[in-house]
């Protein structure tokens, strides 16, 4: 039937579109510097954290996988912060009220910075939510994670341990 034919054509076109769009950006190079206000009230800049392994996590309170990931990130921060590691949360919301309300219910001990104008998101070319960037002690970008699926945290732990050892 002609309907069957164009349905197959549609499926084929769909597959072609998908395959032509896969693009990967590879990490590498110096992590761009920035300064952002933090939840605690002071300004935090990436420069201050040189010498530590930094796990930069871009998140928003409206993003389901981001919220699921947070308690795990908190555990990682607690576990490794004495070994020269720190998690830095970058909240990308223009209006931070929702994020602050959520953090009251789900508190975290690592610094949370507010990128209200999306300056740092643009700087790091954030193209997925959440996005996690691993920066080594020398200030270079080493690993990049787009999105969060249950199970990703084991890979995070491996990468943290690898970078801490350096």
């Amino acid at each position: 039937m002609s309907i069957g034919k164009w349905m197959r054509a549609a499926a084929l076109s769909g597959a072609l579109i998908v395959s032509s769009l896969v693009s990967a950006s590879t990490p590498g190079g110096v992590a761009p510097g920035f300064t952002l206000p933090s939840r605690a009230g002071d300004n935090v800049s990436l420069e201050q954290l040189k010498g530590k392994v930094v796990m930069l996590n871009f998140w928003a309170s409206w993003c389901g996988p981001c919220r699921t990931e947070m308690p795990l990130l908190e555990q990682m921060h607690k576990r490794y912060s004495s070994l020269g590691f720190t998690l830095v949360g970058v909240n990308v919301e223009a209006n931070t009220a929702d994020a602050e309300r959520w953090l009251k219910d789900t508190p975290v001990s690592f610094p949370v910075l507010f990128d209200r104008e999306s300056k740092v998101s643009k700087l790091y070319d954030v193209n997925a939510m959440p996005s996690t960037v691993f920066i080594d002690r020398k200030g270079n970008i080493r690993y990049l994670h787009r999105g969060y699926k249950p199970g990703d945290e084991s890979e995070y732990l491996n990468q943290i341990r690898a970078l801490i050892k350096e």
Partner: protein
Amino acid sequence: MIKGFAAKVVFSMLLIWSLSACGNIEPWVKPYERQQLADPIMSPNLHPISASYMDHVWEAREGARGALGGGGGGCGCN
């Protein structure tokens, strides 16, 4: 014929989308700009149990049927 009309609509839609696949389109709404779209009031299907009931009410009393579906939008995560 009606069938031809439907086929033409779908085909042209797919043609447009497949043409835009040539060359990488930069999303003009960045993932970190989706706060409003992720708001529940922007969800196309906030109350599925109610939507499916109303679809049934209309279909029982009207001659028309179909094309009541949809989705997309949301937080665009992962």
